[in-house]
């Protein structure tokens, strides 16, 4: 454990010997080394670390500002990463060379892929993570990232100045004011303050203001944002109590063992840091009617459950489970918090009862009869900013060069935060370089689905990723995130390392070659049956079968196929990942063809840009109802595609907008052609305009 507080510089330098000249750490007592940065990121959570590292990878001089350096990379809630949908997000963050997947491959204690039997498009990479290791590894990574400096301090205010005329927005951020009155200047600012905006902790009937336990909430900043005119909403979430490991009777509970072999999160890792046999198990227990009774008898002592602040439609706490689905046994997973941790995290038991009642409730659960509660569960209520106030690059409509990422946008989960962090960091950097924003479409990734949902629809519950949110689920798979995003990240942004780019390129060409070889091998079905007796190939089909078609059978994999047709197939089973990915490509081949067509349709809609400075409320040339105008005005969709997904915006309105875009584009095209034909005339025109 590092204790960086107070003596930052010296500890940091011992940590960062190799890169001392590049990575700077500034303790709160030390004099700042510099007060001018390209990008300043506020917050050191999962969004903040990814944003800061991404901006630095893009080549921007970046400062990460956090309350306490020793909380960087802290997993404040569950001791796990990934899952169904969330694992997809992590793969995409990794494809853009983000941090969390690589750190998880170095810090996990139980790796398991969920949904193994349900089809590779919905596999959920997941792992129990050692909190301490994760924090250590993340801090090491952050403090060793070239161009990235870290400073402790509480941000009290934003420095604002007049807006850039060529962009929309009523002002422009140019830095931040810290609690001690000092200032840091920045070309772009990324805000990732999580639940710190007017956070309130609730246990029983007690409430006290705070972010996470023991941290200070940022009240000054919240007021500044409200004064600027940001629409603020309130959400609630919760966390379960922690239990002493040695007080649990595991011997009577169902044990879950990790996968063997472990599948790493990151594309650049062949394996994880720990062998399967050295990993820790999880255990499963259930609630019972006695738990229901305790919850129901004590509702009057539970203000978090009763209050009107919007909770999610899903069941985040044991109280909501008991209230909405009574008389049922609910699952409680007992998860390890780390290799040498004495704590158990009872997942599924989030609760805000008074502490003594929590202990009473725990001890009536099987296996927990003698359990010792080390820390009570609690609820958190916090402000979030309506995400319809940000663009798909995560920049705010109101304040130029100010970006929001993570829980502040109404999401929940480490992975959702990390995904936004990468995109915000990349775009904060691109903005400084005056380059066009980097936007992931919903046809390209779960990151796109996440950000498009947030920015066009908003949310009134903590937004969590599910695979059912993705229209193109069969195309957006965990296995192919690199082919979807790594090349864009490398070519358009420069946030991807050479090594990763080369690996992705090799994989892409190997896959293409493999698929064309598999298509070229054709035998009759009876010959295939003879070659692979294990496969349930029906004989009698007159048409010859391609090897790719045979690979579609559930019981056939590349190994089996390569055994049957060693030449030229055996070279494709040397790499495990390649062999698996060929099998997956074969499984979805026919459906993907159809989906490609749909994706093209959506992309056509996305290509139709709506002018950014459009004033929908007064726009004359388009016939739109006032209701539709208001919706468009608030969400400010960037494309026809996004506009069509806003509820209440009618198809007729979309057609009218389409017409408008069409004529605008024509006008623009005509404008663009003019300079070629008559440069001088055009220049005079512009001059006159300026004089007017």
């Amino acid at each position, binding site marked *: 454990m590092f204790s960086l507080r107070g003596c930052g510089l010296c500890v940091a330098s011992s940590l960062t010997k190799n890169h001392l000249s590049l990575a700077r750490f500034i303790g709160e007592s030390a004099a700042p080394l510099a007060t001018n940065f390209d990008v300043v990121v506020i917050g050191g959570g999962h969004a903040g670390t990814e944003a800061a590292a991404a901006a630095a990878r893009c080549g921007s001089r970046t400062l990460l500002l956090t309350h306490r350096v020793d909380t960087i990379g802290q997993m404040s809630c*569950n001791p796990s990463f990934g*899952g*169904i*949908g969330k694992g997809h997000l992590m793969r995409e963050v990794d494809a853009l060379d983000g941090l969390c997947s690589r750190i998880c491959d170095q810090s996990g204690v139980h790796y398991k892929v*969920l*949904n193994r*039997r*349900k*089809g*590779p*498009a*919905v596999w*959920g990479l997941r792992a129990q993570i050692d909190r301490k290791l994760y924090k250590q590894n993340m801090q090491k990574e952050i403090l060793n990232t070239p161009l990235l400096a870290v400073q402790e301090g509480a941000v009290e205010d934003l420095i604002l100045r007049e807006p850039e005329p060529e962009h929309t927005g009523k002002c422009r951020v140019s830095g931040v004011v810290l609690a001690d009155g000092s200032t840091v200047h920045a070309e772009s600012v990324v805000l990732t303050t999580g639940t710190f905006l007017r956070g309130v902790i609730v246990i029983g009937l007690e409430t006290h203001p705070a972010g996470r336990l023991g941290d200070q909430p940022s009240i000054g900043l919240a007021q500044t944002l409200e004064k600027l005119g940001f629409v603020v909403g309130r959400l609630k979430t919760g966390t379960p109590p922690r239990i002493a490991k040695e007080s649990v009777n595991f011997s009577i509970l169902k044990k879950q063992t990790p996968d063997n072999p472990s599948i790493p999160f990151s594309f650049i890792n062949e394996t994880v840091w720990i062998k399967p046999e050295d990993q820790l198990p999880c255990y499963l227990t259930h609630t019972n009617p006695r738990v229901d009774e305790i919850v129901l008898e004590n509702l009057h002592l539970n203000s978090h459950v009763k209050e009107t602040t919007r909770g*999610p*439609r*899903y*069941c*985040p706490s044991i109280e909501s*489970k008991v209230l*909405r*689905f009574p008389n*049922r*046994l*609910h*699952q409680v*997973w007992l998860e390890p918090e780390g290799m040498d941790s004495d704590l158990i995290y009872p*997942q*599924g038991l*989030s609760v805000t009862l008074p502490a003594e009642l929590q202990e009473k409730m725990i001890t009536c659960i099987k296996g927990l009869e003698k359990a010792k509660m080390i820390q009570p569960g609690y609820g958190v209520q916090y402000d979030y900013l309506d995400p319809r106030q940000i663009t798909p690059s995560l920049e705010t409509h109101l304040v130029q060069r100010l970006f929001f990422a993570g829980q502040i946008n109404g999401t929940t989960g480490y992975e959702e935060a990390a995904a936004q962090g990468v995109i915000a960091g990349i775009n904060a950097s691109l903005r400084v370089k005056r380059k066009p924003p980097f936007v992931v479409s919903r046809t390209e990734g779960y990151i796109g689905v996440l950000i498009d949902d947030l920015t066009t629809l908003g949310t009134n519950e903590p937004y*969590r990723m*599910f*695979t*059912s*949110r993705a*229209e193109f*689920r*069969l195309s957006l798979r965990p296995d192919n995130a690199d082919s979807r995003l790594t090349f864009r990240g490398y070519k358009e942004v420069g946030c991807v390392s050479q090594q990763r780019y080369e690996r992705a390129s090799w994989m892409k060409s190997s896959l293409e070659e493999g698929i064309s070889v598999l298509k070229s091998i054709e035998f009759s079905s009876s010959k295939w049956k003879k070659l692979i007796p294990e496969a349930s190939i029906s004989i009698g089909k007159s048409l010859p079968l391609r090897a790719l078609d045979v690979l579609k059978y*559930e019981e056939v994999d590349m190994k089996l196929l390569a055994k049957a047709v060693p030449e030229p197939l055996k070279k494709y089973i040397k790499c495990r990942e390649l062999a698996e990915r060929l099998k997956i490509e074969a*499984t*979805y081949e026919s*459906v993907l063809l*159809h989906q490609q*067509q*749909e994706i093209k*349709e959506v992309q*056509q809609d996305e290509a*139709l840009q709506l002018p950014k400075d459009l004033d929908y409320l007064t726009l004359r040339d388009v016939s739109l109802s006032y209701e539709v105008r208001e919706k468009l005005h608030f969400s400010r969709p960037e494309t026809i595609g996004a506009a069509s997904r806003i509820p209440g915006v009618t*198809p*007729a309105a*979309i*057609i009218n907008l*389409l*017409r408008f*875009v*069409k004529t605008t584009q*024509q006008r623009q*095209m*005509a404008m663009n*052609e003019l300079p070629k034909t008559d440069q001088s005339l055009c220049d005079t025109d512009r001059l006159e305009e300026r004089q007017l």
Partner: protein
Amino acid sequence: MWRGFWTLVARAARGPRSPRSCTRQGSGAPVPGSGATIFALSSGQGRCGIAVIRTSGPASGHALRSLTAPRDFPPARSACLRLLSHPRSGEPLDRALVLWFPGPQSFTGEDCAEFHVHGGPAVVSGVLQALETEAQRRQALRQLDGELGHLCRAWAKTLTKALAHVEAYIDFGEDDNLEEGVLERVDSQVRELELALSAHLRDARRGQRLRSGAHVVVAGPPNAGKSSLVNLLSRKPVSIVSPEPGTTRDVLETPVDLAGFPALLSDTAGLREGVGPVEQEGVRRARERLEQADLILAVLDASDLASPSSCNFLDTVVTPAGTGNLKENSQRLLLVLNKSDLLPRGDPDPSPNLPPHLLLSCLTGEGLDGLLEALRKELAEVCGDPSTGPLLTRARHQHHLQGCLDALGHYKQTKDLALAAEALRLARGHLGRITGGGGTDEILDIIFRDFCVGK
């Protein structure tokens, strides 16, 4: 000749546009907007072996490309066989000969394309529909009539729930405890839905053969001669004719060729406060049928215009339709004054205060030519616009119900749950084109309502 031309608003906006605006007025209604591309069926309406659909205008190339994708673009002025697919959904429409005439060496001087498709109404409407606009699609949705609409909405509800449960099993099955048997229940729901859909489609195909055509409803007060008119137009005794008011008590339908257009002619009970329960029911049905009509033939007794039943009919049926201030899908109406033979000779017009009307004598046949010419004009308007034509709307519903059924077939075949869910999504999408709905949020609502999930 179908004269209803309409623009490819949505499509054309996406297509590569020449900066030069080339507007061309069709012989029908003026085309809104500039540089419009028009298209129409140019081989005559009704059933035929091969139907020819022509487009003319700058977006022709784009229309051809989007209908024939992913195959290469056909060479100029030579016939090619292509599979036509719906540009949005990719649904195959027909295997057709296509021709490409780039302007200015074409019959209109603009870029033109021709599609020679198989002439069944479903194929023709399918291809025309592939070019239809979103606004027209909405209109078809609104027209989803009583019984079928009710059925489709019920199917959509079942399917949405089935899909939501599969999605729940994918997203939460592993980590949260869904109760046993979720997938088994979905399987049996899908089986039931398949049975219902295939039974309906077998019926619908038979029904459609009889019923395709414009709905022409003959209505009027009792004993105005409605049934005589129906018999005259269909050249066969469909309805019993008698001098007694209230002879026709139910709606009688007969498919006829009206002025060259396929039409379904309905004879209805005379509209009056009925005497007995049977006639009252007949009047109720007549009113219902009036609401569904594409064209109303309103018949009055020319010699009895001042009677209460005639005045009442004029006020409640003729005037609202005739003034033309109905909603956008306003009904067409032809007012016919029958029994002109009873009028005193030499009287130029017995009723100058009435809305525009035609004089007819079913007895002598006088005025029939004028009526047929008027019918031809009205039906050309009705049939020319595929979004209001009953034929297209039904073909469209049938098409999507079939698509839904096919997708459900894929659900059964696959073991990969992501693929199975995709089949249900596809099936729901087809129903969604008829009923709307089925979006992600609806699915999530059902998941969180039916299952205790989340942490």
